């Protein structure tokens, strides 16, 4: 009797497995429809992310995308001088095979590929206007670090700092809330885009700056440091200290405002553990912030503003782009501050060469970053203040340091916040955080700057699943490019956190 029961049971199981197998086969292995009776459209396909007519490096991961249409199937044909790549897929997602993509990029380096998208919508195939992908030989630095945080930066929970290989979809955490007691952490920054020297902050009681030197981590107590940048030699960092105050706009679309109640700039000697200051950089009547070394180490560029009554007078808080000489050999500052960019309404003598002056109406400068070859300085301009993340008018601008010419980067900027940028080591690419999709969640965009200094249309960091950004409820904050994979992971950071912090005097 028991045997009969068992054999019936096995029979049922076999039927169930057979049924499941049939369903699987019918769902996943049936033929994908191919275009027929195609209607031509005179418009670009509604793809997301917007990869139409972008310039991409040959080492980038596949530009997977989706169509913002209720389409049943999609065909994508990519043609260059060599063999073409074609994809037929059910649904609206286009996901490239990694090997096919890599082969295509190898062959297409230096060419412009033509991409044609044909979609089946409501039983009708439509071919959209083709667009191009200019594939350039100049590679982008392969690693990107960023912080993942909810866009409301006042309060945090479950933070991560991740490292992503932009040549594929590999992601690893260098800071993770689970291992770091759900602490606040921020600002992972490389020295000269090198993974051998970098630093990040882990905040809270017992926190500090975690310095990575060839994978050896140490914890530093650099009092009050927020924004920082390594000197070219790696011996110094220049950093700002600030008392950060969040404020709220009553007009809902403006949301959050953040300003500094006070801020100063210093240099820390990582070798002798001492702080170097200058009265020019810690003037109580001025706000000084966002310091960065020039690639030759001879200057510290930063932003400075005259103090105003805050928050009531915040719309008159305009930062200008300035620089001060610094001698790495003697660790001393120069005695004069030069102004590069400032608001037109503030009349004061400019120490910098007149040709390098650019005047703007009601603009405030933030986040200056100089290209590693020293040719360009890239910065953010907003109507006012020092926290452009919530300013939809915040745009990137690029000054040619040889000619003083300023490029307003019309092809790069959007009508939402475009800010927080960093350069690739070859000075041909930069990454920045843009809120162009929804005004809320920052995403990393990469922009190519050709040998003539012309910026090309940027593209969003590709993801394995094209719907990733739609589902993601975190902002990509402070993206930084690195030449190689960091030689440490979150467990090493957790161990370093247990060390005694090295004090600075």
């Amino acid at each position, binding site marked *: 009797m028991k045997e009969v029961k068992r054999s019936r049971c096995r029979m049922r199981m076999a039927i169930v497995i057979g049924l499941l197998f049939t369903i699987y086969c019918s769902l996943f292995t049936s033929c994908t429809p191919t275009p027929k009776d195609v209607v031509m459209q005179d418009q670009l396909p509604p793809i997301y992310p917007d990869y139409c007519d972008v310039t991409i490096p040959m080492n980038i991961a596949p530009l997977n995308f989706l169509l913002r249409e209720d389409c049943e199937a999609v065909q994508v044909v990519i043609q260059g001088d060599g063999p073409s790549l074609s994809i037929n897929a059910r649904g609206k997602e286009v996901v490239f095979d990694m090997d096919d993509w890599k082969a295509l990029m190898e062959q297409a380096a230096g060419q412009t590929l033509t991409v044609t998208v044909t979609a089946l919508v409501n039983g009708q195939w439509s071919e959209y206007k083709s667009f191009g992908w200019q594939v350039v030989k100049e590679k982008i630095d392969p690693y990107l670090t960023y912080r993942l945080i*909810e866009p*409301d930066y006042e*309060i945090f929970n479950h933070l991560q700092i991740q490292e992503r290989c932009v040549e594929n979809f590999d992601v690893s955490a260098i800071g993770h809330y689970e291992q770091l007691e759900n602490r606040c952490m921020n600002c992972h920054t490389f020295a000269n885009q090198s993974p051998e020297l970098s630093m990040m902050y882990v905040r809270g009681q017992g926190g500090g700056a975690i310095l990575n030197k060839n994978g050896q981590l140490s914890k530093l107590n650099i009092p009050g440091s927020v924004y920082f940048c390594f000197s070219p030699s790696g011996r110094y960092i220049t950093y700002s200290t600030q008392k950060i105050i969040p404020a709220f706009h009553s*007009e*809902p679309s403006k*949301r959050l405002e953040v300003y500094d109640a006070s801020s100063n700039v210093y240099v820390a000697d990582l070798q002798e553990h001492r702080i170097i200051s200058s009265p020019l950089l810690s003037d109580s009547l001025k706000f000084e912030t966002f310091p960065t070394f020039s690639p030759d180490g001879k200057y510290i560029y930063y932003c400075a503003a005259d103090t105003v009554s805050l*928050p009531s007078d915040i719309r008159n808080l305009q930062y200008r782009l300035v620089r001060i000489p610094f001698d790495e050999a003697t660790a001393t500052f120069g005695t004069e501050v030069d102004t590069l960019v400032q608001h037109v309404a503030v009349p004061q003598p400019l120490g910098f060469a007149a040709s390098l002056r650019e005047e703007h109406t009601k603009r405030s400068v933030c986040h200056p970053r100089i290209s590693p070859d020293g040719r360009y300085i890239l910065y953010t301009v907003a109507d006012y203040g020092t926290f452009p993340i919530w300013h939809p008018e915040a745009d990137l601008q690029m000054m040619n340091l040889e000619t003083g010419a300023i490029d307003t980067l019309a092809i790069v900027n959007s009508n939402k916040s475009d800010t927080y940028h960093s350069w690739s080591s070859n000075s041909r690419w930069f990454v920045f955080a843009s809120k162009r*999709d929804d005004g809320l969640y920052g995403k990393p965009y990469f922009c190519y700057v050709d040998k003539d200094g012309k910026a090309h249309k940027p593209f969003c960091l590709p993801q394995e699943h094209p719907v990733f950004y*739609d589902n993601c409820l975190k902002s990509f904050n402070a993206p930084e490019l690195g030449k190689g994979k960091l030689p440490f992971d979150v467990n090493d950071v957790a161990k370093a956190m247990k060390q005694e912090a090295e004090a600075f005097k």
Partner: protein
Amino acid sequence: MRNVDYIKCGLASFLIVCWCFFQFCYPYHFFYQEQNQIFLWSRDYISTYFDKPGGVARLVGDFLTQFYYYLYAGATILTLSIVLMGILLYKTLRNFGIGKAVALILSLIAMTFVVICHFSISYRLSSTISIIGWMLVLWIVSLMRAWKMRLIQLAIALLPTYLLFGLPQVKRLQMPDFVLEKNFAVENEYHFCNYDKVIELVKESDGWNDQMLFFYNLVLAQRGELPDHLLDFTPNYLGTFEKIGPNTPMITIRNMNELYWALGDMTFTERAAMMTNVFAPDNRNVRMMQRLAECNLVSGDSLAAEKYLRILDKTFVYSKWAKRARAHAKELYCKKMEMVNRHDTITISDNAHFLMMQLLDANPDNRIALDYILCSTLLLKDIENFKRDYDRYCMETDKPKLKTLYQEALCIWLAGTDASQEEWQRYIHRQDVMQRFVEYNNQRGHPRFKGTYWYYFDKIKAPEI
């Protein structure tokens, strides 16, 4: 035959009792669980479940939890899960040669333990699915006859089972929390716009707490009856004295979201909704996702609204809601749109009084903000500021409010400042109030004046802030 009936009866009784308890005594806990997560039918989202051990358990748990939204579904899913676990345990024990009665008793004990786990809001269905996963493996192991084979099979299965089902997360065991259930009842009935039910729940309750009073007042404010009932319960709680900070409980932040939404402050509605998400498990709360879409629709930020609507599109339960909100935003939120403050100012404070002043300065017809601002000062017995706000938003706009509460409070100010007859006539338009005030002054503090603001002012302790 008798034994078989005994087992079936045991399981059936458990099933019925368990289902009835959760359906009739503990149903609002299901809404809390359902709304404090989100499940997206998206390959990208589902793949995130496998980032750490226990992916299958969490996936199945969250998938089923989303259906808690529907009436009877929560109790049914939970009961069936527990009974399935019990049956698997019973079968396993039987295969291991344990007698029927002992196996049944042990199974019932285990099932009861899981039921107790579910009394706590921190215990999630995925933990029960995790237990079911382990029971399933044990049952499969028990099918082998030789102990050696069983041990080998178990050793082989341990790691895969851990990776698939993880370990159940039991943070604490507790008795059913019926106070919390009542709080959830009030909050959820408010969410579903069953305002009469909210009033009924609070009025019929043996005791009340801040959470219940908060929603009771919110209903009354939207009906324009807040001043009529402010003194129904003392001490009362409006929520307007709360501030959001790193240590604010998530429930308070969520309440503040409801308050700001009712007041029409979209900046702070969005902020509180984002913060609720930040502190929800896995940083996702489906109700706040709806609210984020709503407040951006109201403030006219369609790109931001679309972000959340696209997420809701991928849910089984809220996709219709998202389509409707997208298609009919103007009709659904026209009143809220009129309340939006388009005059920009910057403040470093989330002081509700200041926010309400901003809203009223921008839109003096915002009756909810007006009642809240006046009632808040009255609860604190802050007659000076009440008079200041009343003048600013009622007298100067030539729209005096003749609610009894306000007239009574004005009497206190007028009497306290030795106001002239002219001023009395200017402010006090209700002769019945005037007459009663005279009577009160003759019997100051007499219990027959309970319910008047004068009695509250003299006899009841104001909330401390």
